[in-house]
C-alpha cells in the first residue's frame, strides 16, 4: 500500500497550502511576541518549539512524533498505581 502520487505531484497539489500553514504559524508566533508579557517559559510554548524542530527532521514519522510530543506519558505500572488487581497471568 503506498501513495499513488509522485513527490512532485504532491508538492504541486499542496504547495500553496503548505505556504499558507507556515505563514499562519509565523503570524501566530508574531502575535505572541506582540502581546504584553512573556510566555517563553510556558511549557505549552516549549512544546510548540520542540514540535517546530521536529518538522525539520528528515524522516517520514513526523506526524507520529508530534503526536507523542503532545501526549501525557504512559506508565506500564498504572494498574498497580490505581490499586487494581493485576491482569491474569499470561493475559
Amino acid at each position, binding site marked *: *500500500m503506498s*501513495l*499513488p*502520487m509522485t513527490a512532485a505531484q504532491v508538492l504541486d497539489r499542496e504547495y500553496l497550502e503548505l505556504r499558507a500553514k507556515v505563514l499562519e504559524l509565523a503570524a501566530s508566533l508574531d502575535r505572541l511576541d506582540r502581546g504584553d508579557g512573556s510566555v517563553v517559559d510556558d511549557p505549552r510554548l516549549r512544546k510548540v518549539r520542540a514540535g517546530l524542530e521536529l518538522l525539520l527532521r528528515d524522516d517520514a514519522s513526523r506526524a507520529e512524533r508530534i503526536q507523542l510530543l*503532545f*501526549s*501525557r506519558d*504512559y506508565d506500564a505500572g498504572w494498574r498497580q498505581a490505581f490499586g*487494581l488487581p493485576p491482569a491474569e497471568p499470561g493475559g
Partner: protein
Amino acid sequence: MDYIDPHIHMVSRTTDDYETLAKMGCVALSEPAFWAGFDRGSAESFRDYFRQLTEFEPKRAAQFGIQHFTWLCINAKEAENVSLSREVIAMIPEFLAAPNVLGIGEIGLNKNTRNESIIFLEHLDLAVKHSQQILIHTPHLEDKYQGTRMILDMLCGDSRIERHRVLVDHVEEHTVRPVLEAGFWAGMTLYPVTKCTPQRAADIIEMYGPERLMANSAGDWGPSKPTAVPDLILELRRRGHSESLIRRVVYDNPLEFFRQSRQFAFTPRSG
C-alpha cells in the same frame, strides 16, 4: 459510492442530516451510546436513551433507506460515577436482544482515571458474559496515547476477549500501530480540530494498509461533520486510489466487522 458510517451519534442530529447522509451514499450506520453533553441524573434516564437507540432511531433512519445499528453502555465520562454505572450495566441485558444492537459501546477512558478503568473492566465482563462485540472510545488530545495504552493493557490482560470482535476507535498516527498489531480493528474519526482530517486518515491508510481499518464521522452534538466519510472518499480518489481500496475501507470492512454480531442483518442496496 455506497458507504457505512460505523460511528455516528444520530440522536443529536436532525432528520435533515439523515436525508443528507442518504444523498451522499450512506446505506447503514452504527450509533454507540455516549455522553449527552451533560451528566444524566439517573439510570432511568439511560433506559429512555436505550429505547431511543433501539426503537426510535432505526425508524427515523429507515425513512431514508438507511439501516441503523447501535451499541449500548454508559460512556467513560459518566463512568466516573461508579454506582450509577453499575445500575446502568445491570440494565443493559434487557436491551441486548433488540434487533439493531451490535454489542457494548462506546466504552473507554476519558481522563484515564481509576473509576473509568473499573467501569471499563466491568463492561468487558458484561460483553464477555453475553458474547457481545465491543466498540471502544479512546480519549482525546494529550490523554489519547496514555489512555489507548491502558485500554490495550486491559483488553490484552483478559484472555476471554476475542480481539477480532473489538473495534478501537479514534486512532491517530501515534495509536494506530499498537491497536492493529495487537489484532484489534481500528477506527479513524474525521472530526474538526480535535481528531483526524480526511488527509491524515488517507495517509494512515497508505502507511498501514486497509486491513481492519475503518473511518467514521463520530458526528454528534459538538462541532462535527456527519458527511466526513464522503470527504475521505473524495480525498482517496483525488490521490488516485482504486475504487476497490476505497470501498474496502468505507463499506466492506464495516460489514465484515459487524457480521460477527449475531444480530447483524444487513440488506445491501439492490443492483
